[in-house]
């Protein structure tokens, strides 16, 4: 099939659903919420066509719980929601981090706090994605800025979740979720799909939370002869509750290390014109579209502007930002919030170098506003 034949007009939420199917997702549990409902609607129709299962649960807490239960049963599983539902899911996202259960949580961000404005875009859940649940834990969060990227990053989210035994968050926003674009989807045969790692050790030797030799011990599904215990309590290598500091500390260090030692795999970003830049623009999600436009406008005016688009926003691409900004005096960070990821940029490159450009009134951030931020520095 030629690329032209494969081209479709597709909505972001639909691309997310199709990406999930392509990644091997065979279970979805969710609860209706704007602007993420279309993901559930598409999967209610599509999943049974490929032998998968869809269920609309009684609330978002039940949705993420069912997703974790399905993942324990061996399925690749996903839920999708928006801010209010994402808040409700936080406790069980922590459970998935604690029990190291692979799963994907999509948050199509809308304006908050509280009910906010359901059909207006926002990037207000950046910090909630990182720190929304209680306790120390690593997380991976990916933010697409186009319809094709939504497809690709949803596939990637499943791959990361299986490769690192961790919940992965796809942080979309209302613009990306509801926008339609022409996309050419990849040939299904060419899509990389991570399979969950398995073990050949006999069941009586199996330790589902073993700290050595791998930072990511294999997770055997329930029902296949490996009977073991999973709990949200701190646990030893077999999964039994423990209060021993010498068992808790190595576990916590391992789950942090399993992400921190794989940044070269996990950190996804696009760089453009960094080398001779005088000003650097860092953006993600829908904002990256306006930022890209603003960068081009500034270049037409003779400004030397570099652009760094982050696709992985958690873990934060600390060294990438540090390196890109090292020679520069000016870093512009546009966001559709009052300043969230910019806190990380400021931490890394120093507050005096950073110009915040924020819009949080329910409208999409415009290139002109970002351009003004660039120009202010370039004077």
């Amino acid at each position, binding site marked *: 099939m030629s690329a032209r034949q494969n081209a479709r007009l597709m909505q972001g939420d639909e691309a997310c659903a199709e990406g999930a199917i392509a990644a091997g997702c065979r279970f979805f549990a969710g609860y209706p919420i704007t602007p993420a409902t279309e993901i559930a609607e598409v999967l209610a129709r599509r999943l*049974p066509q490929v032998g998968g*299962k869809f*269920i609309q649960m009684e609330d978002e807490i039940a949705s993420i*719980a069912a997703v974790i*239960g*399905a993942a324990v049963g*061996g399925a690749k599983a996903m839920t999708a929601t928006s801010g209010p539902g994402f808040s409700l899911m936080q406790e069980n996202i922590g459970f998935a981090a604690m029990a190291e259960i692979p799963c994907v949580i999509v948050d199509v961000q809308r304006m908050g706090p509280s009910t906010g404005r359901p059909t207006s875009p926002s990037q207000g859940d950046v910090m909630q994605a990182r720190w929304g649940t209680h306790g120390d834990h690593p997380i991976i969060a990916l933010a697409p800025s186009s319809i094709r990227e939504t497809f690709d990053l949803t596939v990637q989210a499943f791959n990361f979740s299986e490769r690192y035994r961790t919940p992965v968050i796809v942080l979309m926003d209302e613009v990306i979720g509801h926008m339609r674009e022409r996309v050419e989807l990849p040939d299904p045969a060419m899509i990389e799909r991570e399979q969950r790692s398995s073990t050949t050790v006999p069941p009586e030797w199996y330790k589902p939370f073993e700290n050595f030799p791998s930072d990511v011990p294999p997770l055997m599904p329930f029902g296949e002869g490996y009977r073991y215990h999973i709990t949200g309590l701190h646990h030893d290598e077999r999964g039994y509750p423990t209060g021993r500091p010498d068992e808790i500390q190595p576990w916590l260090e391992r789950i942090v290390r399993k992400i921190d030692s794989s940044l070269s795999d996990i950190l996804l970003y696009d760089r453009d014109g960094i080398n001779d830049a005088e000003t650097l623009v860092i953006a993600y999600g829908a904002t990256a579209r306006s930022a890209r436009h603003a960068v081009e406008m500034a270049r037409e005016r003779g400004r030397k502007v570099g652009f760094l688009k982050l696709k992985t926003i958690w873990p934060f691409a600390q060294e990438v930002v540090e390196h890109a900004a090292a020679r520069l005096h000016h870093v512009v960070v546009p966001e559709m919030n009052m300043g969230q990821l910019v806190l990380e940029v400021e931490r890394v490159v120093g507050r005096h170098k950073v110009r915040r450009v924020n819009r949080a009134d329910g409208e999409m951030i415009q290139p002109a506003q970002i351009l003004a931020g660039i120009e202010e520095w370039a004077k």
Partner: protein
Amino acid sequence: MKRQQRESRVHERYLRHNKKFPNIWCAGCGIGIVLGAIIRAVDKLQLNKDDVALLSGIGCTGRMPVYVDFNTLHTTHGRALAFATGLKMVRPEMKVITVMGDGDALAIGGNHFIHAARRNIGLTAIVVNNSTYGMTGGQYSPTTPIGAQAATAPYGHIEQPFPIAELAMVAGAAFVARSTVYHVQELEKYVAQAITKEGFAVVEAVSYCHTTLGRMNRWGTAPDMMRHLKEQSIPLRRAEQMSEEEKHGKIVRGVFADRDIAEYTHLYDQIIAEAERGTA
């Protein structure tokens, strides 16, 4: 003696040998009796341990799965049924059993309880009803009787309790039974029936907490409270011939519902068959 020997062998085959005992429950607690009933029911039904999953939420009852050699999942407070729903959907051939306390199943998890019943998904829900939050020290729960003293009801409790079995019945569960931790054999029989049932099956196991609610209300020792279960409970058949006044304060034991309703995962299989036909 012979029976005792058989019983001890049953426990040996189902309790985890590599788990550090003793358990966390107070001496005299009824939860161990419910665990024993589950183990004997599974043994009687000759289920393969690999095919049994035991899930729980939080609280004293939440600690039950860790001791048993099944696929065990100790979830978050109130959410055992929601986790179990996901597991059952991807592993419909498994026997998925949840154990919950009354606070776990009916306060924080009340929404999941009625919706699992309405959906009639093939899960077994065993509710150990001790009328209080034991682990946190005797606060009032959705089944604490009116007038009782509780750690959070120092002036006496003013809310009416949920009748768990009746609630499950009207919510749509395929099988509903109630017994007590005194009626060990009856409890075991109901648990076995519930596990066998296609559809959502609820067993309410009435128990007590002598270390918190019992102590605060001067209801006596564990044996005293066990005696109360014996003396104050009546079979459903007899209750049906009694007036509301006569039934007041009684624990009605029996099978409240045993009906054939299409089970959820079976219905979903039909959806898959239909959807696959449509795309073939």
